[in-house]
């Protein structure tokens, strides 16, 4: 059999409930069943159920559990008080297994006693318990509910059905069988009664853990501080050298940034020579460099744009503009490039 994650979780939850006796099963012998037909969308509170149906109970001041189906309410009166927070009637568990077997059928279950379930249109119309199988009573039920079919189920299978039903309970079913009154007053009472000491314990524990953790960390810090001061004292001389070195290094770094930020004249001239050495129709007329600005005047017969592209390939140049482009003769033009240099440091 395969279970998905949700089913496994519910299964674990039910197991936990059973382990802590929070979930109790009331045998069919200790309950009396009543099928209450309800108009659709009508929900009855426990008080209304008690008010309307208490009179049908064979027991005096009975406790009861209910489970709503689509058009009717399943109501079980209980013979005795049960302390469990979730009470599930054994009859419900058996009905759950039988519900989808046959649409109309009278089931005779050989449990510890004999349980009779009358199911019509997949509804549990009645259930009763017999010490000895009474054919007359079964015949009467057949006639009353107009059901022909009868099926008898052995004790082993009945036990198996109960086990399977309890393990396949849904959260919705568990919710309906919870016996705790959920109004605010009772919730706060429940919390105070059940959780005061756990909460207090938790608070004391968390404060204690925090305090101990703090103490431990403080002592560790003290040890580390002591060790650090010791190491620092041992390195005092070296630290002095490092400090002086850093001051000097910073001084020279600033000097380089201020004074040697831009490429040297030789580097720029070399780069221009390498870039333009293959160009035949060019004469450099003048060159002026001042800080990050450079003015380059050339004389050529070709387009200034072709030289602009070549000059752009020089890494030292950040921006290049054609400042002037004057035609001197028919074939000769004078082009002024205004260049902004890139910082190298």
């Amino acid at each position: 059999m395969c279970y998905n994650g949700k089913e496994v979780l519910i299964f674990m939850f039910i197991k936990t409930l059973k382990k802590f006796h929070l979930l109790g099963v009331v045998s069919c012998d200790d309950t009396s069943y009543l099928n209450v037909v309800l108009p659709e969308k009508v929900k009855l509170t426990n008080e209304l159920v008690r008010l309307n149906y208490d009179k049908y109970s064979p027991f005096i001041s009975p406790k009861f559990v209910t489970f709503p189906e689509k058009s009717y309410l399943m109501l079980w009166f209980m013979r005795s008080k049960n302390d469990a927070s979730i009470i599930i009637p054994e009859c419900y568990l058996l009905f759950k297994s039988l519900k989808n077997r046959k649409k109309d059928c009278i089931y005779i279950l050989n449990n510890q006693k004999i349980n009779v379930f009358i199911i019509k249109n997949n509804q549990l119309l009645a259930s009763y318990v017999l010490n000895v199988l009474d054919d007359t009573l079964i015949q009467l039920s057949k006639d009353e509910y107009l059901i022909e079919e009868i099926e008898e189920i052995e004790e082993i299978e009945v036990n198996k059905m109960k086990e399977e039903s309890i393990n396949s309970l849904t959260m919705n079913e568990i919710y309906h069988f919870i016996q705790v009154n959920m109004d605010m007053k009772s919730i706060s009472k429940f919390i105070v009664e059940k959780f005061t000491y756990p909460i207090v314990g938790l608070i004391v524990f968390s404060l204690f853990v925090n305090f101990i953790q703090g103490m431990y960390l403080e002592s560790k810090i003290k040890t580390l501080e002591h060790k650090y001061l010791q190491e620092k004292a041992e390195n005092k001389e070296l630290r002095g050298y490092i400090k002086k070195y850093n001051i000097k290094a910073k001084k020279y770094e600033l000097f380089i940034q201020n004074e040697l930020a831009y490429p040297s004249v030789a580097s720029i001239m070399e780069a221009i020579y390498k870039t333009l050495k293959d160009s035949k129709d060019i004469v450099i007329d003048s060159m002026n460099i001042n800080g990050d600005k450079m003015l380059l005047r050339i004389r050529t017969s070709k387009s200034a744009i072709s030289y602009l592209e070549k000059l752009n390939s020089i890494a030292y140049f950040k921006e290049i503009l054609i400042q002037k482009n004057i035609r001197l003769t028919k074939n000769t033009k004078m082009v002024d490039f205004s260049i902004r240099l890139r910082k190298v440091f």
Partner: protein
Amino acid sequence: MNNTKILVLLIALVTYINYQNYFKVDIRHLAKKIDNLKSNIKREEKIKDENLSKNAFSLNYENLFFNGKKESYSQAMGHMQKEVADALNGVCRIENIKWAEAPISYEWYDELAMNISLTCSPKNFLIAVNRFNKTKKLYKVKSITMRRNITKQKNIIFLKLLAFRLSK
């Protein structure tokens, strides 16, 4: 409801809130402090393990500068002019040299400036620049104007050359 239990719960909650507000130990802060201390100790241990001597920390570029304590402005400029003349000797012709009137002082050094005009081919100028680079002192061309002289087939170069002097 059980009044004793409510009282116990109330006291516990009040204690918890007050502890959280006023006495709670900031574990994160302490853990961060421990991390910082550990990294500091590691750094100190690394310094100690490297076993460095005093010489490892020498950073001396002072020989690249003229010395303000030993050389006056005119002495430094004279020295500079000599080195310029040596560098340009045989490759460029010096037309004119003019010293700046006074050095410009910065935080720990002065700028010594010299305006030079030369007649030189570009190739020879590059040879001269290479010679400058090989001198003991640091020189910087602050500005340069290079113009082609068509008649003489040589370039006329105006440059402002800087040297640096450590302040007094």
